[in-house]
């Protein structure tokens, strides 16, 4: 057997993050008393990884580790966004954790390992690595959900998340094994070839695809695999909820793309039908259930379900009766939607963290009462986020919805677009209720907002970026489009 030492350059960022995770672990074990060390090292790791991701790998698609790892523009763009999301989420969550005596080095260590898991998922070109990355991310998230170990609610949430997540992993693995059985290949390129030359058995493939879809749907949190989302979002410490609701969505999007588009593109007709079913159900159920919530974390969870449904609409519109010329536009619309959702999700949960203080969780919508009187600036920021989530024009959420709907209409599913618009109009109700509460109700308490300076700055940047990208979405749209174009063709 002749073995060539693999090229490490494309995976330099992963190797760097893995090494830094070990460094942070040792720092956490031997320099526990230095409180800022783990946090600083984590942020430095993310910055370093970003620099490596920008400068080291080549722009072209390159494979390494016997074809298990792929470095392409699609992956690298998503990785950069993941670093950004994790970094911002950690920055927002820091004060919250410190107030509750949960700011232990392990938290940051798990966050770094979670980031590594997401990077592996994003760059996976092999069912095995995809699965391992997914497990690494999920395990770290389960642990962080239970981080407030004396709280019954967060323990319960972690337990639910873990049990259901393990079930979903099992379904995913079962689907993967069927696909392996049918195609005899584990890496995506070979699977694609096997499908193209039709050497694989179609019945077994479809059987596997169903299980695969169940696993993906769970990780994205779309109906009917959404049950964990509200409970986990509500039960987990808000800082962790923020982490769950941001970067992992990008990773789940990448996983969906890698599995369905990069590997199983030949089965597009079949999985598009399944995705359409999931998307329609999610949009309807997410929006309707969110109306009834009084807890803002729960409300945002249901809104997240509907947003994920919207994102899937972009994937539904790729292939129309065998024609693929619409595909890149549709997929880049979905990618744009995912990025926009992560930005909005960061800002909305960040706001909940901003209002929380020691011994007080700003979890109820009523806690936002009269925010305008207490802090007009942050009330405006929250308004931007809510408007953007509702899809009101000239915020990023509007363009995300617009792009997705355009591609859906271009694919000829007008009824789907109409349904989606109707549901988002209904959904606007609960977003606007938050705005109404902030501006027209009397404040329940007038304690000044107490938050570290860097968090206030970041919060403002985050809110303004939603508005700014709403005014000039072309750059981000183009980035998504070029990333997919460079990676898929």
């Amino acid at each position: 057997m002749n073995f060539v030492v693999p090229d490490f350059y494309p995976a330099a960022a992963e190797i760097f993050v893995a090494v830094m995770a070990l460094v942070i672990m040792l720092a956490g074990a031997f320099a526990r008393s230095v409180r800022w060390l783990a946090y600083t090292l984590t942020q430095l790791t993310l910055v370093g990884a970003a620099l490596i991701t920008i400068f080291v790998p080549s722009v072209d698609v390159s494979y390494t580790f016997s074809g298990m790892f792929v470095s392409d523009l699609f992956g690298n763009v998503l990785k950069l966004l993941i670093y950004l999301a994790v970094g911002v989420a950690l920055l927002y969550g820091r004060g919250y954790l410190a107030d509750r005596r949960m700011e232990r080095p392990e938290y940051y260590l798990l966050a770094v390992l979670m980031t590594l898991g997401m990077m592996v998922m994003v760059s996976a070109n092999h069912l095995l690595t995809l699965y391992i990355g997914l497990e690494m991310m999920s395990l770290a998230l389960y642990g962080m959900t239970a981080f407030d170990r004396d709280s019954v609610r967060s323990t319960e949430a972690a337990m639910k998340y873990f049990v259901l997540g393990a079930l979903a992993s099992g379904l995913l693995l079962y689907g993967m094994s069927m696909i392996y059985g049918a195609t005899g290949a584990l890496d995506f390129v070979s699977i694609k070839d096997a499908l193209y030359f039709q050497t694989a058995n179609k019945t077994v493939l479809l059987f596997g695809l169903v299980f695969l879809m169940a696993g993906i749907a769970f990780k994205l949190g779309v109906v009917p695999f959404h049950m964990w989302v509200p409970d986990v979002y509500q039960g987990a410490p808000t800082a962790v909820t923020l982490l769950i609701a941001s970067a992992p969505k990008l990773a789940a999007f990448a996983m969906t793309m890698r599995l369905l588009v990069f590997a199983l593109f030949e089965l597009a007709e079949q999985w598009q039908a399944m995705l359409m079913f999931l998307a329609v159900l999610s949009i309807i159920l997410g929006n309707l259930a969110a109306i009834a919530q009084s807890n803002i974390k729960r409300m945002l969870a249901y809104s997240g379900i509907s947003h994920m449904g919207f994102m899937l609409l972009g994937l539904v519109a790729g292939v129309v009766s065998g024609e693929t010329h619409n595909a890149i536009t549709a997929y880049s619309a979905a990618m744009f939607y995912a990025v926009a959702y992560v930005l909005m999700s960061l800002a909305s949960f960040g706001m909940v963290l901003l209002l929380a203080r020691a011994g007080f969780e700003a979890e109820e919508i009523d806690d936002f009462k009269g925010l305008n009187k207490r802090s007009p600036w942050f009330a405006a920021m929250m308004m931007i986020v809510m408007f953007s989530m509702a899809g009101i024009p000239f915020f990023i959420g509007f363009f995300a919805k617009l792009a997705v709907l355009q591609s859906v209409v271009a694919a000829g599913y007008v009824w789907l677009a109409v349904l989606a618009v109707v549901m988002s109009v209904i959904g606007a109700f609960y977003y606007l209720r938050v705005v109404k509460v902030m501006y027209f109700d009397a404040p329940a308490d007038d304690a000044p907002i107490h938050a570290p300076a860097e968090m206030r700055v970041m919060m403002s940047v985050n809110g303004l970026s939603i508005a700014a990208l709403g005014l000039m979405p072309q750059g981000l749209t183009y980035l998504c489009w070029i990333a997919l174009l460079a990676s898929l063709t």
Partner: protein
Amino acid sequence: MDFKTFVFYFLGAILVFAALRVITARNPVHAALYLVLAFFTAGGVWLLLHAEFLAIVLVMVYVGAVMVLFLFVVMMLDINVERLRQGFWSYLPVGALIGILLVVEMTIVLGGRYFGLEVMPEPPAMAEGYSNTRALGMVLYTEYVYPFELASLVLLVAMIVAVTLTLRKRKGTKYINPDDQVAVKREGRVELVKMPAEKE
């Protein structure tokens, strides 16, 4: 039916029986012991497939370590089985229906039509002296080094989570540090004092 097929069905019967007992045994300790039996038999089935490394590692890791600790926990817990069984009969019809449906569907897809010996013939026998363990080692550290290293990090995550969630210092408990005890020297404990002899 040749000898190998006979052994396969024999082990298969034990495996199915043990697996059924795992979920039907009233006593959790018995259930855990049946699980041990199931693992052991599954190891036997793998041996039949010439996967001796996997079989032995299954016995070593699951039977020898994981299940020991599992039993350890189950024996110390006072599990009220009766309470766990509440609602069993009311859920049974739905559960049984779904279970049977799943079995039927899987038999249709996974039956001999797609995975039978005609579609996937038995691989040729390995040459004399072929070592499964060596072959696995060869690919594990070369071709599959990336997922292998990542898997070790997944285990690290599990370890960190387990330690973070369980390690806590209770107030008011006094710990003895065996390291200090082992490091004790004579000088720390005994002092020789020279005294002049006393007269009565």
